[in-house]
């Protein structure tokens, strides 16, 4: 699977109502670590169908960023059964991200 672009219109369907765990990556084009993280998230999305990866551009989707109180990026939030279960700020090792989803 590839990374899904998250918007206010599909967030409910792709994240809240997802039957798989979801890693939401709040990011921006002007944030260098966010850009450096992107190829790693692409790798993760391609390597497994056990979870979904949703990328939210905080400039395009400022309402979502505000709703989830994002004020530092990259901000990586794991959702399970519609609930936020884990959150990390800044670059994280790939395997830690996978473990956050598997927990």
């Amino acid at each position, binding site marked *: 699977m590839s990374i899904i672009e998250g918007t206010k219109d599909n967030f409910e369907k792709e994240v809240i109502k997802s039957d798989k765990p979801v890693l939401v990556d709040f990011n921006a084009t*002007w944030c*260098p670590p966010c*850009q450096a993280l992107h190829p790693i998230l692409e790798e993760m999305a391609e390597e497994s169908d056990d979870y979904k990866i949703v990328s939210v551009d905080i400039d395009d989707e400022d309402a979502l960023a505000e709703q989830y109180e994002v004020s530092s990026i990259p901000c990586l939030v794991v959702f399970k059964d519609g609930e936020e279960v884990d959150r990390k700020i800044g670059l994280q090792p790939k395997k830690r991200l996978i473990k956050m989803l598997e927990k």
Partner: protein
Amino acid sequence: MHDIIVVGAGPAGLTAAIYAVRANKKVLVLEALACGGQIINTSHIDNYPVAPHITGADFGKTLQKQAEDLGVEIEYDEVTHITPIEGGFKVESEDEEYSAKSVILATGTSPRKLGLENEDSFIGKGISYCATCDGGFYKGKTVAVNGGGNSALHEALYLSGICDKVYLIHRRDEFRADAALVDKVKTKDNIELVLNANITKLNGEKHLESIETDNGHTLNVSGLFVAIGRIPNAAGLVDGLELTDDYVASGEDCKTNIPGLFVAGDVRTKELRQLVTATSDGAIAATAAIDFTHE
């Protein structure tokens, strides 16, 4: 078994990998976080030859592409331990084990924290270690930068273009940063210097609201950008590796006290930690590692 494993995909590590792969060595780069290293957070680089004004992000991306195009293999895995074995080294992560005839350590440094008790609770809620990542959240607001080196002054200048006001807090009365940067900071009307000051207290309900200093200031700020130096990523990585002040002890030859283990970039003891000295180290360490694999 690989010929050479490079630990860290910043400028030093990727340059080392480029030299090694061009010598037809089987090279693996292991990176804990993301390619590019610390430099990706620099908004503009003006002191690297032939690439004036390049952004740190573009520098990192271009270097990664150059390495990959030449055939360098990069894996995202956090190395936890390196052990000398017969004929080379065992390199371990939490779940994997790799081996190579020679290893180049290019693990760089991590930002030093203030060390205040509630610091962690304000991370992402006012405290940041990366102005280019989080500056945008403080548009029109008042923030502080703590530090006196190039990184701190770069951050203050960057933030002065976004924020209403920037306090630059430094523990001494003069800056360690380049004179050109200091002069530029002094021309900015919205940067106020707070010198001879250490931050002693962070206040706020959910989000940072104010900071206190040991010389009696209470500053109302919604953001604090910490740039008070770096900590080398070397502790506990290799048994018996000689460190000096936490940095890997080495001279300009990039050799360590362990034969076959080399060190490049900011994690090494050196006078000048710059992009140009990191890439230089990469070339020297790779050449030494290539020679070692022939022995």
